[in-house]
Every structure is written in C-alpha cells, then in structure tokens.
C-alpha cells in the first residue's frame, strides 16, 4: 500500500495518468465512431452462418490471426474490422495471403460466396464494424460528375485519375480499379484495407461513395472516345508508343521509299 502511494506521487505519475486518460478517451472515441457505422452488420447473418464461419476461420485463418481472431505476430486482430473487411479481403482473393510481403495481391478467390458469407458472419459477430454495403448504394445510379470530383480529391493520387493504379513506397502499390466490383470498391473505402486510409461515412457520405462507384463504372464501361487508351497511363505510354510504333512505322516507310525496286 505504502509503495503504491509512493509511486502515485512519482513525478511521472501525472503523465502516466494523462496518457491513460487520453488512451481511454481515444479508444472510446474509436469504438463510439465505429459503432455508429455498425448498423445492420448482423442483420442477415444467421447463427449457423456464424458457426460455420468459425469452423472455416479456425481451419484457414487462425494460423496468422489467432484463435478467436485476436491477432498474432503474423496477422492483425480482426475483432471489430466488420463483415465488409472480410467480404473484401476474402472476396477479392487477397486473404488467405500466399506469403508475407509488402502487400496482399488480388487473386482468384479461395472461398465461394457462401463460405465468404459465413466467414464474414463470424468476424462480424466478434465485434461491431463496417457492414457489407446494401444494394441501394451500389446501384450505379448516382451522380457521376460529383463522384468524379470526390474521386480526384480522395483517390486519384494513389489510384490514378483514370483508376489505372499507381505506385506506393517500397514495393506497395494502389491497384487498378477496372474489373473490381462496386461492392468491393465500396468495402475498400469503408474498411481501408492494408495501407489504404479509411473513408468512413463521416468523411465521404454513403451517397458520395455511391457517386464514386457510379463514376468508376461509367468511365470503365464507356471506354475512351479517342480509341485504345494505352493503359490510361498518361504521357509515358504515349511517348513509348510514338517512339516504338510511330517512328517504327515511319522508318519502315523510309526504308521502302529509299530501297531499289527489283
């Protein structure tokens, strides 16, 4: 008792107390704000989904994420990441990861839709987190122009203005968004997979996200009015094209032009 009270008077005690207080409020804040988004996250999951999901999880994911998804050295805790995170990571084949690396790659999904659903159900049951988006926000009927503005401000610096992807530091990259379903794009925004920041509903409203998905799907489906888009990579691919194809064809003509006819 005496020792404790002495420690209490230690000069660092005040700072420790302050830190604890800050951490507590910060944590509460975080929980409080995620709870806001956790609407309907368990709505369409049945008890058997959760049960099956747990079995799948223990067989396939627990090695890295730990029993009960509490996290290990090899993988983060999944408590509170929400169903959307699981649906995105497993649905795009990023999880289970083939090996540890700077980034998980998109690959053919290892689990079918039902299994993904069950895994989502299990992880969602561990703690409240972002839910799988409802069909209403994925109808691609939003305002493409508004979506374009939001996309350019919030997304284009990593994913490129035409969503062709771009490089991050030390081997990481922002993937191209063509052929990614609207649902997965939406889930990536709310969960912030890997190094992508989280775009919670308080940052970009569900309506705004719907606009973004609309914009992306629209530019993807219409294609470029000018012909082949050369990867939409901008001046680099255009320069390569003019040097290789443009000058190549011109040189072929000059050789023909200055050769002798037989």
């Amino acid at each position, binding site marked *: 008792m005496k020792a404790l009270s002495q420690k209490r008077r230690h000069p660092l005690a005040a700072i420790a107390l302050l830190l604890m207080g800050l951490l507590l409020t910060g944590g509460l804040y975080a929980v409080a704000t995620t709870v806001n988004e956790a609407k309907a996250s368990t709505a369409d999951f049945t008890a058997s989904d959760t049960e099956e999901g747990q079995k799948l999880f223990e067989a396939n994911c627990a090695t890295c994420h730990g029993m009960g998804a509490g996290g290990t050295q090899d993988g983060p805790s999944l408590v509170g990441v929400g169903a959307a995170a699981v649906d995105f990571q497993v649905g795009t084949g990023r999880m289970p990861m083939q090996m540890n690396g700077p980034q998980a790659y998109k690959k053919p999904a290892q689990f079918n839709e039902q299994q993904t659903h069950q895994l989502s159900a299990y992880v969602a049951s561990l703690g409240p987190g972002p839910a799988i988006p409802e069909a209403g926000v994925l109808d691609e009927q939003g305002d493409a122009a508004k979506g374009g503005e939001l996309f*350019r401000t919030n997304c*284009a610096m990593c994913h490129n203005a035409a969503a062709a992807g771009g*490089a991050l530091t030390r081997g990481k990259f922002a993937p191209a968004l063509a052929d990614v379903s609207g649902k997965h794009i939406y889930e990536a925004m709310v969960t912030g997979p890997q190094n992508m920041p989280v775009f919670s509903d308080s940052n970009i409203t569900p309506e705004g996200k719907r606009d973004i998905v609309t914009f992306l799907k629209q530019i993807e489906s219409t294609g470029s009015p000018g012909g082949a888009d050369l990867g939409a990579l901008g001046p680099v691919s255009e320069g390569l094209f003019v040097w290789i194809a*443009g000058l190549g064809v011109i040189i072929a003509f000059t050789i023909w032009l200055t050769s002798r006819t037989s």
Partner: protein
Amino acid sequence: MSAASTAKAPAYVANTKVGRITDFVDERVGGSGILREFGRKVFPDHWSFMFGEVALYSFVILLLSGTFLTFFFDPSMAETHYNGSYTPLKNVEMSVAYSSSLDISFDVRGGLFMRQVHHWAALLFVASVAVHMLRVFFTGAFRKPREMNWVVGGVLLILAMAAGFTGYSLPDDLLSGNGLRIIDGVIKSIPVIGTYTSFFLFGGEFPGTMIIGRLYVLHILLVPALILLMIVLHLFMVVVHKHTQYPGPGRNDGNVVGYPLGPVYAAKAGGFFFIVFGVIALMAAFFTINPIWNYGPYDPSPVSAGTQPDWYIGWVDGALRLMPGVLGDFHFEFVVFGYVLTLNVLLPALVPAGLVFTVLFMYPWIERWITKDNREHHVLDRPRNAPTRTAIGMAGFTFYCVMWAAASSDLIATHFMVSLNDVTYWLRALFFLGPIIAFVVTKRVALALQRKDREIALHGRETGRIVRLPHGEFIEVHAPLDEYKRYKLVGFESPVPLPAEPNEHGVVTRKEKRRAALSRWFFEDRVAPATPAELEASHGHHEAVEAGAGQKTLSH
C-alpha cells in the same frame, strides 16, 4: 544594252494558256533561273536521311491542325460550369480554357480527331528532330562546313520542346496544371530573382488567371514564328552545303551522288509528306492521346498517380526525381546569409540539361580542336569508323535515357513489380555509371565491327558452305567481295593520334599538350582499313591452304 538585245532576239511567245501564264510569272520573277539551278539538283538517297523531312512534315501538320484548334479554343481562365455532352464532368466547376478543350473533344465535329492529330504530330515532331540529330551526330555530318547548321538544329530542338510544353499546358487540366505547378516550384528555387520571376510569369500568385493566355500567345505566335525562322535558316544552309552522302564507290568529298530533284527525288519527298500525314492520322484514329477528360479540371488540391510530362520534358523531370534532398545529414536546401538556396531543385533542373546542351552545341568545335581537322567533309563516317565519337554519343544518349527512365520510375515499379525506392536507387547509380559503361561497350563494339569489316574485306563473306579439303580438313568457303562492296568496307580514313606540335614561337603550350592527350584518347584504339597489299597476302594465304601446303593454323 538589254533593250538592244531584246530588240534583236525574237520575243518568246507561249502557245498554250498555261504556258502564257507561266511565262507571265517567269518574266516577272525569273523562275527559269531558279529551275535551272535546282530542277536537277542531286540528292543522295538513304532511309536515315529522311528524319529531317519527318520533322518538317510534322511541323506542317502541326500548323494545319493547330489552326483548326485555335478556331474553337478559348484561353481564358475565367470560372465556368461545364455544360457539354461528357456526363462525368457535367456541371463541374472549371476554367473556360478546359471547358472549350472538352467542347473541341466532344461537341465539335472532328475536333477530337484534330486534337489527337495535333498532339501525336507534336510528339512525332520532337522525336524526329531528336532522331535526326542523332543521325547527324553519329555520322559526323556536323563537321565543316555544317557546324552552324548543327547549332541551328540544336536551337530547333529547344524550340520544339518549348512549343510542346507551352502547348500541352493550354487545356488547363489537372495533369498539365500540376506540371505548371512543378515549373513554378523550379522557378521559385532560382536565387535572387526566382520569386519575382514566378510572380511575373503567373501575373501574381500561382496559378492566377493569366498563365494560360500568356502560354497561348507564346504557343501560337512567338514559338512557331521562331521555329519557322530557324527552319528557313536550316534549309537555306542545306541548299548552300548540298547534302552529305554515305561513303561508297563513286562517292567522295568533291561530288554528290544520288537522284535528281526532278522527278524522282521530288516525287519521293512529296509523297513522303502524305505518308507521314497518313501515319499520324492512323495514330489519331485508333489511339487516345492526352485524355484530358480523365484528368479533370485543374485544382491545386488533387493530383493523379503517374503525373509525368510529355516525353521530351521527361528527362528533366527524371533528374528532379533522382536528386536526393537529404544525403546523410546534409540537407541540399540551406540558408546562406538569411536567404534560401534550394540546391535539391536547382541542381537537377539546371545541371544535367545545361551539360547536355552545352556539349551538344560545342561538340563540332571540340572535335575540330582535338583533331585539328579543318577540311570540308561531305562524305559521312559510318559510326563504327569513328569509335570514340560514337562512344561519346552513346554515353550522352545513355545519360539522357537514364533520366528519361527516372521520369517513369513509378510506372517501372508497378509494371515490373519492383519497389519504387529500389528503382530510384538503381537509376541514381546508373546516372553516373551508365554513361561510362555505354562509352566502353560502344567503343569495343565499334572496334569489333571494324575488325569484322576488315575480315570480310580480306577474306570475303562466309557462305555457310563447308568443304572438305583433300588432306581431310574442313573449311568454310568464303565468297570474295566485288570491288564495289569491298570499297565500302575499306574506303574510310583512320586517323592516328596527332602529337603535340610547337606553335610559331617553337613552344609546345600546355593547351597543345592537353589537345595531344585528347587526340591520343580519341584515336589510339584504331583498326586500320584493309590495304591492297594485305588483300594480296590473304589471297596467297588461301592458295597456300588450297594447295594443302601443311598450313594448319587457319584464321577463318
């Protein structure tokens, strides 16, 4: 006197209507004399001589398509809301310049085609100028009497880059706007006058409302006028000098061998204009260039991944990327006497480009000083026959290409699945090592090709036919060359190092010693052309072999 002579000779009367018109003009401008001088002027024919024409024709196409674009483009930076037919930008706030560029793309019939023709032609224009200059350099066509024309060509290259830069900034889209912002940052790094220069250029703070209009005037008036002026000078000198020709039988510094202007060369050159136009039209038909609708209007907040300039500005951007801002604990930006010196921007923006252009402009005089060669040269060097020059050229080209590659370091990283940082580290090393490696490798390759030429000149071409000699040995039959083909391989000069010579006072100056050292460096590795005596000897050698006189060490 002239009155007397016209009175004597019966006046020429044309028979046909066309003839009468021609005669009318000719009497007043003296076209007959011009035609007599140039009508049958001889031009040598080689595919590598066509790049200058590609550049000229691209420029003509640029003028034509550019004129069309000016009819619809409005270089105003006033605020407006887009109301055209491209829905993903409907009602978005933007400048009038961007909005009118979108209108050209989506609402003017053929406007998109013209935009794409203009931009592809611009890329081709600068590329063909560059290739043309590489051809001139590697074949030694810059030597006397063409040094000044080489300089005019260099000025044209810079003007072409200026035309390109001022042009692609005009649509006021996000990509070019960020490009302008980078230019603004570079300008601000200039000591003493940087901040003022930036404010003068942009008419105040970046981005202001003036820059597009100003660039527009430069792009459609000043720069093209200068380019035209330089083209006139360039072509005038080509007429004065006549064209160079590759070495070969019947070709020497005193003649020019080729086809007469009329009809063959005129037909080929004229037809080639249509071919270049056709190729550009094909590119514009099927390949998007500068999709400004993807980038959105300029706004200082957003940016797109993969922000790069057009290819010809890329090398300067690449140099900016390669420069480390902090090396260990040393910051390249520091304060001197209360003012900021931004070496991390200033050095890469000025030094590599300054180096490349200084060497480029000075090179004819540098080589002339080292070789003390004051003769006129109208016969070109095959690149292999000037190994050191070729190696210098390749070193410079490699230096350029490393910076050029650095401008796409992020795309190299994503497309070859490597780390962006590693790409930068490697390119930083190559920035210094690349030119050296290129120099050594090129020189060795050139010397090896010279040896191969010698081998072929002396022993003929390998036929691939293996013959067994009576004594059991197998040899490959070599077909001897005819004298014309052989002359192509042996008819070149192979200078030896020129040692230091005393000047008129009998003193060998230090400068002269340096020159002699450079001359040694230039010419010490040489492969002399084969001589008739050697050919004679090699024939004897062959006969000896065929006679089976116990020769076992063959050099086939």
